[in-house]
C-alpha cells in the first residue's frame, strides 16, 4: 500500500485515496506531429526498473494532480511535487541523486 504525500494539501494519503496517471512530463504531440512522434507520445513508455516520475491524483482528497519520484523496485519515494511543471524541480533531483548519484532526469525523462 503506497503512501504518498500530496504536495498541494500536505496530506499523507494512502494508495486507496489516490489515482495513478502513468508516466509524467510527457510532451503532448498535437496535429502537427508526425506519426512517429505521435506514437512515441501515446505509447512508448520508459517503464524503468528504477526511478520513475509518475503522475498521481489526490482523487479522494483535494483533487489535484501531482508527480511522484518513486523507485519501481524498492518503492522508495524521493519526493512529490505539483504537476504544473515540465521538469522535476531541483530539490527532487537532489533527493534522487542522494540515493542514485548517476540519475539524470533530462536524459531519463525524455521520450525519444
Amino acid at each position, binding site marked *: *500500500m*503506497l503512501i504518498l504525500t500530496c504536495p498541494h494539501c500536505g496530506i499523507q494519503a494512502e*494508495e*486507496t485515496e489516490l*489515482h*495513478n496517471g*502513468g*508516466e509524467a512530463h510527457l510532451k503532448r504531440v498535437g496535429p502537427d506531429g508526425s*506519426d*512517429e512522434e*505521435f*506514437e*512515441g507520445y*501515446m*505509447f*512508448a*513508455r*520508459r*517503464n*524503468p*526498473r528504477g526511478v*520513475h516520475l*509518475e503522475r498521481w491524483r489526490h482523487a479522494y482528497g483535494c483533487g489535484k494532480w501531482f508527480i511522484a519520484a*518513486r523507485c*519501481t*523496485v524498492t*518503492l522508495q519515494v524521493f519526493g512529490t511535487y505539483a504537476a504544473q511543471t515540465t521538469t522535476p524541480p531541483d530539490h527532487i533531483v537532489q533527493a534522487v541523486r542522494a540515493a542514485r548519484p548517476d540519475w539524470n532526469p533530462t536524459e531519463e525523462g525524455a521520450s*525519444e
Partner: protein
Amino acid sequence: MPDTARSGRYSVFAIAREALRQHKGWNRAWASPEPRDRYKVIVVGAGGHGLATAYYLGKNFGITDVAVLDKGWLGGGNTGRNTTIIRSNYLQDPSAAIYDKALKLYEGLSQDLNYNVMFSPRGLIMLAQTEHEVRGYKRTVYANNLQGVSTEWIDAQRLKELVPIINIDGPRYPVLGGLYQERGGTARHDAVAWGYARACSDMGMHIIQNCEVTGVETEGGQVRAVNTSKGRIGCEKLAMVVAGHSSQLAEMAGFRLPIESVALQALVSEPIKPCMDVVVMANTVHGYLSQSDKGEMVIGGGTDHFNNFTQRGSWHHVEETVRALVETFPMIGRLKMLRQWGGIVDMTGDRSPILSTTPVGGVFVNCGWGTGGFKAIPGSGWAMAELVAKGRPGPLAADFGLDRFREGRFIDESVAAGVAH
C-alpha cells in the same frame, strides 16, 4: 553432468518399474549445460512462452541449435504465479485465432510432451451481471461462431446448475447469464514449463538457468550476441520472451516498447473438498475463481495501477476481489486466504500482446500478454517459432506487430468484457 542427457519416457509402467528400485533410475528431466559460445537462436526467458517458442522451433522447423536463457529458474516468472485459467473465447479475430490455437494445443499437450500438464477442460463461465455485459457476451458468441471457436450463451438457471455455489440472485448484481466455454479450464502451470523444458532438453537444446542477459550486441543494425552473467553468447537470431522485463531487454537492444509493468494480484484459499467444477469469472465485480485439483480456491482479481517490479502481493485490490467473490459465492466467506502474491505483467497500449519483428535485425519480441499469458502459451510459442524461423510473422502473429500502434490498428478485447483475463 553431460549436456545431452535424455530424460526417458514417462508412463505408468515406468513408475511401477521404478517403484521396485526405490525410484533411483529416473534421469534428470532436463540437462543443466554450460553455454556454448554461439547458437543459431537464443531465446531469452525460460518461462512458458520462451520454452514453447524453443520447442516449436525444434518441432515445426527442425531448429534445435537453440539456447533458452533465464536469469532465474525456469518457469519462475509469471508461468509459476498465475491462476492457470485457459480459454479462447475472445472477441477480436486475431485474439480468438491465437488463443484457440493455444487451447487446441493444450488439449493434446500432455501426449505431445509425454508429460502430464493436467489440462483440465472443466468449462469456464464469464458471468454477465449487467445488461451491458449480456450484450457484450452475446456479441462474443456470434463472433466466436464465425471464428470456429466453440462457446455459448447460457441463462442463469443453467449457470446455477453448473455452479451450485453461486448466488444468482445477488441483491446488487443478479447473474443474468453467462458466456460458457465448455472446452476452457485450467492446467498445472508449473508442469507446462517443466514439460516444455524436458522436451526441449531432449531435443538437444540448452536451457541455461541463472544466466542473466546484461546486454545485446548488434552490428549494422543486426543482432550478433548477448552478453550474460555467464559470458558473451553469439547468435543469429534473438527472441525476447520475458514478460515483466520486456522494456529492460528492449532498452538493451536500443528500442522502446509500448509497455508498462504492473502487478497482478492473486491468492489461494486453504484446500477444501471439491465444491466447484467450473472456472468462473465475474468481471463486473472484478474477480475470478476456480478450484485446483488440490482443493484450493484460486482467486484472481485486478492489477495494481502503478509501475512496479516487486512481484509482491499488495493489499487493496485483494480486498476488492475478495469482497466481490464473497458477494457472488457467499459460502466462501468462512474459507481462509492461505497465500497471496503478485506477478508482474506487461500492459500494452491496447492490452493485447506483441509478437513482432523489431527495429533490430534478427531480434524478435513476444510480450505484452497482460493478464492473459498462461492460456496463450502453446499458441504463442507456435506463432513465435514461426516468426523467428521465417523472419516474418505467419497468420497467427500477423496482427500483433508493433506497427499497429503507429497505425492506430488496435486489438481491443476490453470491448466485450471489461477486462481481458
